[in-house]
């Protein structure tokens, strides 16, 4: 492409291309603006609004009281516990999903599709029923409990512990990790790996220097897709953990449903959004390019 071109023409071509890109994104932009950004505007407005005596949110008497309450000890405790659980969930999911995604990517194309669909099918049953099925596996004489104590990995009921919550979250969000990992690993040019293997001799360093860096976009996308919903989850912790220690998801739900405190529920949501969005953007910068 190193032919000398008239800079004016090139500039024009650039602008045409830029316009084309914008037009491609336009349907999604319009859609998200109408059906996401405007609705989100309501939540932001709610966070500055007033809760009436009966629990309605009145769009008047604007104040920042709901934001002042974010400094309370209970919010901190709940936020840090949720962060910790989400981090462990993400790490475990990565450890479980990476080898699986690698395995799937190295099958023949027809087998690949089948294995991939095989990952998703369990999740087409019903979320609540699946989680209740885990109760059966994790209770005092559940199969999973017996296996774990048989191998010497703890004894007694797993149900209603933090471990049960993490297990349930890993189960629920593992496909979110597998899919982007698969998408990233599958497109790796294996002749590079072959070359690396000739160069470094060991399969492990070939993996570390070639496969891992190339699959990083998948790792990052997968981690976000797992971390974020684990942070806000509330059904799994309630069913498998017994809801004994507050988490962010259930705290927000309690505000909207039980306390009918729209402003506080909204300010909590805004907090989660801002922190997560910043975290996500920073994480992506670290991953090299803006994925």
């Amino acid at each position: 492409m190193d032919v000398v071109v008239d800079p004016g023409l090139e500039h024009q071509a650039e602008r045409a291309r830029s316009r084309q890109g914008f037009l491609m994104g336009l349907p999604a932009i319009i859609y998200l603006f109408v059906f996401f950004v405007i609705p989100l505007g309501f939540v932001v407005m709610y966070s500055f609004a007033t809760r009436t005596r009966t629990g309605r949110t009145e769009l008047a008497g604007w104040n920042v009281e709901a934001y002042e309450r974010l400094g309370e000890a209970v919010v901190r405790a709940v936020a840090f516990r949720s962060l910790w659980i989400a981090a462990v969930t993400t790490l475990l999911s990565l450890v479980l999903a990476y080898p699986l995604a690698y395995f799937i990517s190295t099958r023949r194309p027809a087998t690949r599709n089948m294995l991939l669909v095989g990952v998703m099918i369990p999740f087409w049953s019903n979320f609540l029923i699946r989680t209740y099925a885990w109760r059966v596996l994790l209770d005092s004489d559940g199969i999973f409990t017996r296996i774990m104590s048989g191998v010497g990995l703890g004894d007694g009921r797993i149900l209603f512990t933090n471990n049960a919550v993490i297990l349930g979250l890993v189960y629920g969000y593992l496909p979110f990790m597998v899919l982007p990992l698969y998408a990233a690993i599958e497109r790796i040019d294996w002749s590079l790996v072959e070359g690396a293997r000739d160069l470094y001799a060991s399969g492990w360093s070939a993996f570390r220097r070639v496969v891992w860096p190339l699959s990083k976009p998948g790792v990052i996308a997968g981690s976000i897709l797992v971390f974020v919903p684990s942070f806000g989850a509330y059904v799994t912790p309630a069913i498998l953990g017994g809801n004994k220690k507050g988490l962010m998801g259930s705290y927000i739900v309690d505000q909207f449903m039980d306390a009918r405190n729209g402003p506080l529920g909204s300010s909590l949501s805004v907090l989660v959004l801002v922190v997560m969005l910043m975290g996500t953007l920073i994480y992506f910068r670290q991953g090299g390019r803006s994925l």
Partner: protein
Amino acid sequence: MKKWMSLVAVITAFSIVAVACGDDDDVVQADCEVGQTDGDLAFYNWSDYMDPELIAAFQEEAGVTVTEDFYPSNEEMFGRVEAGGSGYDMIIPSDYMVSILISEKMIQPVSEAAVPNKSNVAERFANPPYDPGAAYTAAYQWGTTGIGVDTGVTGEDVPHTWGLLFDEAVADQYGLSGKISILDDPRETMGAALKYLGYSLNSTSKSELAEAEAVVADAVDRVAAFDSDQYSELIVLGETVVGHGYSGNFLWDFEEGESTYDYFVPDEGGTIWVDNMAVLTDAPHPCTAFAFMNFLLDAENGAQLTNFNWYASPNAAAEAFIDQEVLDNPIIYPTDMSKLEFIKDTGDFEIEYTDALSRARS
């Protein structure tokens, strides 16, 4: 881009709100006659609470179709009908929720002319604290909140006290640690702790509530789960030994169990609750809804309902048709009504209950 986007968002949002805020304060009330219908009925109810045969009979009699959807909690139901335009005609809110619905003008007064059977409602439920004069609702079924116990594990002589949930010494004595479930419901859970301390479960005293909060916080480590759905199944499956929950649910599941079980309201006192039939203000078919209300308040139909769902009937005329074994069951019809208290809407203070439960578990 960013600037104009946010500007447009704000302007659009505000103009929408302005358009939507043209409220009028008139009380909506449909004028219907007995048996008059104005279309198919959309009924929003708790699950396993309505005998399908009664619905079939009403469809036959009135010549309409009934669609029944279910909700798992009052709050869930409220969230869905709050914004308006839900399309539902009749709902079955519990007592305290009725006061909220009335103050929010979300339910309409009963069209007396269309519901002559309202006179069948027993005197005790004809003038409830949450709906003076029962102007907006008619009682549907009632029951209590108490404790279910696997007496096969604890022995028959368990003390009838909230201490089973909250007292460490009692838990140790009967081996209950890790075998307790408590409702995940701010009013019921904090209410039980308040009763345990000897206070009213409608207390609006910050210091009393703080004591109750400490009681719940202390119990957290001994509790298996805060659970409002499966407390009775957990007992029957042997995962828990005592559970905090609603009377009728225990009965259903105890039938399936292999141990011996008991249910009681502790001696300190507990909750009596009433679920009520109410017609939404924006109900598309209010007359059909009132016709259905009248149908369910009929003596024989009311009895059939209780024989089906094993909750007590507020219908005095129905008693003659209720199975004797149901009437004689002290779990369904408690012998001592004096220590039972309604959960009342505490208004401003309501929010304190949720916050206390959150702090107790933080």
